[in-house]
């Protein structure tokens, strides 16, 4: 125990004297969060102009009514195509018999999407209007029966109710709980990995192992110091997002910190493990695109159930998926720790396995 404490004290002291790394751990996440808030909260309206050829007047008017979409009638496909080439319009809708043929400039996917959506809903609205017309025609021929129901003619109104946040809730809010975990994972993984790598290449690990220290005491000493670091980092990030950026956290902030600290331990154990496969700091950096970045995709930012089955399987071996699941539930649904126990338990399982591997792995440098 004395040795574990001494090691964690030493690791902490070294970290505290490394001002740059500290800044990286504490200021970089804040900076990125501010930037993301600005970028994702931007008003993302699109302005689309579509050319219509041979499309019925009713439909053209309907499309034109759509928000952000302007429809212009063209006489021939040729002239419409010219306009498309000159970037005066973003798409052409041509009607042939009952079918529509749509050409997209497709230089801006959001415009393409807007055009598609506008056309689809316009066709729908148009069809409904026609249907109504036909119906009323039929009704006039059958005066007795259903008249009571049609006369009421209640226009349905949609009432919006948001479980989390409000109508301003955007992608940023969805990403935030996951991002918090990502920052913790990324920095702890990298910095602890580098620290142990340094210890190995500078020879201090050899010197350390020439004392009667237990291999487990080294690993636990590292865990203790990085655990503290992760507590501070998470607290800072959480407090900043809640009070600085005004993001709503439904659940208990304390629970988020707990989940992230467990994640930090996993990141630490992972970093130490990967550092044994690296010969230099640069090789340690090479793990970022392989191990750290892919985790973002599986952490819940993109819904897992939309992915192919075999891709989903990958997610199950990535720690960030579980922390993302747990923190999202806490931040957005206000769940307590008990109801997110299963992802937490998986994280703890990761931790135990990785720690055991690390203690075992130090045998490479001392045979007992």
């Amino acid at each position, binding site marked *: 125990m*004395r*040795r574990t404490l*001494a*090691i964690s004290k*030493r690791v902490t*002291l*070294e970290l505290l*004297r*490394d001002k740059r790394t500290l800044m990286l751990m504490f200021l970089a996440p804040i900076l990125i969060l501010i930037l993301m808030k600005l970028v994702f909260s931007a008003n993302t309206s699109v302005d689309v102009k579509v050319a219509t050829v041979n499309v019925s007047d009713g439909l053209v008017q309907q499309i034109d009514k759509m928000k952000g979409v302007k429809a212009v009638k063209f006489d021939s496909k040729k002239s419409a195509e010219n306009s498309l080439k000159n970037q005066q319009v973003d798409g052409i809708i041509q009607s042939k018999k009952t079918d529509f043929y749509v050409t997209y400039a497709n230089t801006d996917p959001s415009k393409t999407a807007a055009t598609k959506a506008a056309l689809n809903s316009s066709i729908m609205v148009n069809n409904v209007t026609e249907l109504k017309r036909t119906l009323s025609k039929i009704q006039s021929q059958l005066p007795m029966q259903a008249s009571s129901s049609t006369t009421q003619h209640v226009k349905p109104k949609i009432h919006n109710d948001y479980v989390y946040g409000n109508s301003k809730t955007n992608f940023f809010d969805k990403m935030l709980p996951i991002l918090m975990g990502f920052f913790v994972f990324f920095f702890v993984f990298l910095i602890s990995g580098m620290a142990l790598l340094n210890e190995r290449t*500078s*020879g*201090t*690990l*050899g*010197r*350390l*192992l*020439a*004392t*009667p*220290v*237990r291999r487990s005491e080294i690993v636990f000493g590292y865990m203790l110091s990085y655990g503290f670091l992760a507590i501070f980092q998470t607290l800072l990030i959480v407090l900043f997002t809640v009070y600085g950026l005004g993001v709503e956290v439904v659940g208990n902030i304390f629970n988020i910190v707990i989940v992230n600290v467990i994640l930090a331990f996993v990141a630490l154990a992972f970093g130490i493990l990967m550092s044994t496969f690296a010969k230099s700091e640069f090789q340690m950096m090479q793990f970022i695109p392989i191990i750290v970045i892919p985790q973002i995709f599986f952490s819940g930012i993109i819904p897992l159930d939309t992915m192919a089955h075999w891709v989903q399987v990958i997610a199950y071996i990535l720690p960030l998926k579980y922390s993302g699941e747990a923190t999202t539930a806490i931040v957005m649904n206000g769940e307590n720790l008990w109801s997110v126990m299963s992802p937490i338990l998986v994280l703890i399982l990761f931790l135990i396995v990785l720690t055991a591997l690390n203690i075992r792995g130090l045998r490479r*440098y*001392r*045979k*007992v």
Partner: protein
Amino acid sequence: MKASVVSMKNVLKKFGDQVVLDDFDFEIQPGKIVGLIGPSGSGKSTVIHILLGMESAQAGEAFVFGQSMPDRKLLSRIGYMAQTDALYERLTGRENLQFFAEMKGVDPALVSEQIEHVSAVVELVDELDKKTSGYSGGMKRRLSLAISLLGNGDLLILDEPTVGVDPALRQSIWRELHRLRDQGKTILVTTHVMDEAELVDDVAMLIAGKLREYGQPDQLKKKYHESTIENIFLKVESQNETNVSHI
């Protein structure tokens, strides 16, 4: 005869295909300073690593204090100084000493006293509160030596302790080693400096994976009719080379 402090028997050590130690035998009697000399790359550090349990031999046995190595607990009785100055550069000299004292399990009440003592031996008392990143090469070497003296181990294993140390300080270090020997400690030193090999009780020459010569400097000088260890070493080395070329 007293039991050997260090005893290696039929040790075979290979790195891949490269045979570094081949049927290697080595004994060190208690209370002796043994100088292990050999060409660069001959395996001196490897011998030390095997004794400390940092490498394992493919065959043969290594004992320290009669116990088979590797053995974690035994390490508290061994002071080790590596060939590279492995120091925590962001910490001060004192913090480095403090840390390793705790790792060695030095009684907390004795820690500061020991730090005083070992830093006085290597003449670093005035520099103790400086970060080691600001130390000169020789200062690092001295701090490294001071660390190995912590814990008052019965066996000191020093891998080239005097590299980069000025002559005056080198003399005082050797005086300290002799003093420690007189207190009953056993010391294994590797060196490239041949006049240092005159200061040891026994010289061991490691050449081509085997202990080619082992004895008191004076006896070796008589045997080879040479006046310096350096000449003996060159002689033994060239003999070995001609042997090899005959094969």
